[in-house]
């Protein structure tokens, strides 16, 4: 009976606080007991730092209370008491931690531990503060309750146990709590689908904030340097705007009224970044344009070409690179539609058949003034060039590079073009010296530009012909040849009535013999010392662009004389390429800087004797392989008296394979 009666014990209404504590396994009675116990102990230990009666005091008042008391007591006792309280705290902490571990079971975070530790009163309130257990507020940790925190915690909902239902914070749907649900932005739980979304967002953020791969900034610097964009000062506003447009190319709908040079510049950037696609193509097509310049038409399909010609029928200058997908129909349409076409430059248009080319020449006839074709594998034949020579008598500018089927007869046909001024040839088939000489004899006097690349068997007689027939050359390139001797170069430039050249390129004219890398010493092959000296003597004053890369037979004496002597001045030189001339050393480079005030770019790959150079601020030096682990020296310009201050230099670059 008594048992029944005992079992019937009525429980009165419980307060919210009691409910909360009970739910978190905190026993109020236990807290009270511990507290009283501690007070007793403290009192028993003498007038230690007093513990203000039970009530939740703010840390501030707690501190004040402690301080006053500390003043009263002498040091020793204080120390002892402090130590004791520390010990107590530590013991208490351990107890608390154990309790926490036991009670943890899927409950989250610091709220419980906060609650518990506050209940135990050992550590200072907030769990996250691993700070100092030995706080200055000796032993007053019970009283370091922050009432605000505690009340906040009380009203915060504790995380429900797995198995219970909860409403999602974001979508308010009811779902079952699992140990894997994550918290939403306001602290409540979210359901699984919303949780996935949140995780995705976090991941995307992290990805965009992730560090770029290591070498990227350095590579960008190098790439800019090779483009000639100097590293000092701020970028121009145009440059920055163009970069922004290229970055947001997807969003650009129309270019509006932009002037033609800007449109061309934009098309260059788009081509470089390979975003010139059918979608962005319309940006560059405007009915009033006279020239269409698209350097990378690789993504454009047959219909896109027709679109170009449809939208811009008055085009006069057409420059299309990588025109791999241009077919006969497109060209047919072009011939029909564009009646003003004068300058045509098509690279890699391999789908156009030979018949189509011949039709092209026939229809264009006298309209065609410049033609540049590169990378034609199977189509353009010698016969087609003969048709061209017959029909298009007004051609001034002609460039055939890497057209595999052209050979000797093509050269013979070209020789008959009466108005030819600029000629550039690089053919794969063998061409005899006689044809070349005959070409120069017929066209030489009027030629302004002559570029003969990779005619491996061309010999001295070619240069002799140039010397006797060419009188108005401004740009001359004879490169990649291993037959012409230095003596021929010397006699070309000596007493040549032709005016000073503006552009001279003799790269890779040297002897190729692996057994004898210096070449025959008595009779050097390729542009050698004597030839180089004669070249600079003849053209030094007006020369803007000089390329003698891989002319490794030029010796140090000639280079020093050309650049290091005290009266050497080349006022117009802007670009010099001395790559793989192994005799170039630091003095030569410094001499170049002094002698060429207008210099913008010096390319010196593979010049291993070049050491620490002082680079003036206006010059970009590329390719010096001195591996100083990318030490960059910043600096200024030439002083008035020509003393250079250290400029920008990058070492440790990859050496270009060549020679």
């Amino acid at each position, binding site marked *: 009976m008594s048992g029944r009666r005992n079992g019937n014990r009525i429980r009165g209404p419980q307060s919210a606080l009691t409910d909360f504590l009970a739910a978190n396994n905190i026993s109020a009675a236990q807290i009270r007991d511990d507290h009283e116990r501690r007070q007793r102990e403290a009192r028993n230990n003498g007038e230690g730092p007093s513990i203000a009666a039970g009530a939740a005091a703010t840390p501030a008042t707690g501190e004040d209370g402690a301080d006053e008391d500390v003043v009263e007591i002498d040091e020793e006792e204080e120390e002892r008491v402090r130590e004791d309280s520390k010990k107590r705290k530590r013991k208490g902490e351990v107890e608390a931690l154990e309790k926490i571990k036991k009670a943890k079971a899927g409950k989250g975070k610091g709220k419980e531990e906060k609650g518990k530790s506050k209940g135990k009163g050992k550590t200072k309130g907030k769990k996250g503060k691993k700070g100092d257990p030995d706080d200055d507020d000796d032993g007053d940790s019970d009283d370091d309750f922050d009432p605000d925190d505690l009340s906040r915690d009380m009203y915060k909902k504790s995380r429900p146990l797995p198995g219970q239902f909860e409403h999602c914070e974001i979508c308010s749907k009811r779902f079952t709590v699992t140990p894997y649900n994550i918290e939403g932005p306001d602290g409540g739980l979210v359901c699984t689908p919303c949780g996935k979304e949140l995780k995705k967002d976090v991941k995307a953020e992290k990805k965009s904030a992730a560090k770029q791969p290591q070498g990227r900034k350095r590579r960008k610097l190098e790439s800019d340097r090779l*483009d*000639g*964009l100097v*590293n*000092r*000062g*701020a*970028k*121009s*506003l*145009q*440059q*920055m*705007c*163009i*970069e*922004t*447009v290229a*970055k*947001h190319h997807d*969003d*650009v709908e129309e*270019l*509006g*009224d*932009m*002037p033609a*040079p*800007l449109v*061309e*510049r934009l098309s*260059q950037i788009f081509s*470089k970044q390979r975003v010139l696609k059918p979608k962005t193509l319309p940006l560059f097509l405007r009915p009033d344009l006279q020239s269409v310049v698209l350097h990378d038409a690789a993504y454009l399909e047959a219909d896109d070409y027709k679109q170009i010609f449809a939208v811009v029928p008055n085009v006069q200058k057409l420059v299309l690179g990588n025109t791999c997908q241009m077919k006969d129909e497109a060209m047919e349409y072009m011939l029909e539609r564009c009646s003003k076409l004068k300058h045509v430059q098509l690279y890699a248009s391999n789908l156009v058949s030979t018949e189509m080319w011949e039709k092209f020449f026939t229809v264009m006839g006298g309209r065609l003034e410049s033609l540049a074709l590169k990378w034609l594998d199977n189509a353009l034949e010698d016969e087609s060039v003969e048709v061209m020579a017959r029909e298009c008598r007004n051609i001034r500018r002609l460039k055939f590079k890497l057209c595999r089927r052209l050979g000797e007869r093509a050269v013979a046909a070209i020789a008959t073009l009466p108005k030819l001024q600029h000629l550039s040839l690089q053919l794969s088939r063998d061409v005899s010296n006689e044809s070349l000489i005959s070409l120069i004899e017929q066209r030489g006097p009027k030629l302004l530009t002559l570029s003969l690349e990779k005619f491996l068997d061309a010999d001295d007689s070619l240069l002799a012909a140039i010397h006797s027939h060419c009188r108005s050359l401004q740009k001359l390139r004879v490169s990649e040849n291993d037959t012409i001797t230095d003596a021929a170069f010397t006699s070309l430039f000596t007493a040549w009535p032709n005016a000073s050249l503006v552009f001279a390129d003799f790269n890779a004219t040297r002897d190729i013999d692996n057994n004898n890398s210096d070449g025959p010493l008595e009779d050097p092959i390729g542009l050698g010392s004597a030839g180089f000296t004669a070249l600079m003597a003849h053209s030094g004053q007006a020369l803007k662009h000089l390329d003698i890369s891989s002319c490794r037979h030029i010796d140090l004496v000639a280079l020093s004389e050309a650049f290091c002597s005290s009266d050497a001045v080349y006022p117009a030189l802007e*670009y010099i390429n001395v790559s793989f001339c192994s005799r170039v050393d630091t003095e030569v480079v410094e001499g170049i800087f002094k002698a060429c005030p207008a210099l913008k770019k010096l390319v010196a790959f593979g010049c291993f004797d070049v050491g620490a150079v002082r680079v003036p601020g206006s010059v970009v030096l590329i390719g010096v392989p001195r591996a100083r682990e990318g030490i960059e020296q*910043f600096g200024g310009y030439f002083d008035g008296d020509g003393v250079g201050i250290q400029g*920008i230099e990058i070492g440790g670059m990859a050496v270009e394979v060549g020679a």
Partner: protein
Amino acid sequence: MATLSQFVTLVSSDDFSFIVLRSAACLSGVIRRMLDPACIIFSHASLLYSVLTLTDGFVEARTNTCHFENISGMVLEKVCEYMYYNEKHRDGKDVPDMDIPPELCLELLMASDYLDSACPSLLHMALLTAA
């Protein structure tokens, strides 16, 4: 002749005025010539708001004010921001790029082309890129 004022005023098409340092504004060749009192007049521009006089130079030079009827206020503000940014980083290395909102960049590009701001010139850049 009195010394030139340190500040000049740039006025946009919608009547926003921006008072900037003369040294910053003269980054643009067009502005520099408009404000130069010694400049001989070969005025062609239908777009320039300037009055031919036989004596002193453009009216802009006398009033130290330039009106731009084809540049809006928002764009002109960015232009002024760029001028100061350029001046501040004139000799710096690795300068961080100025932030350009994509909505504005096309108009800004045209304005900068008109104002001929800073070197290198467009043709130069094109040549360098093609090289």
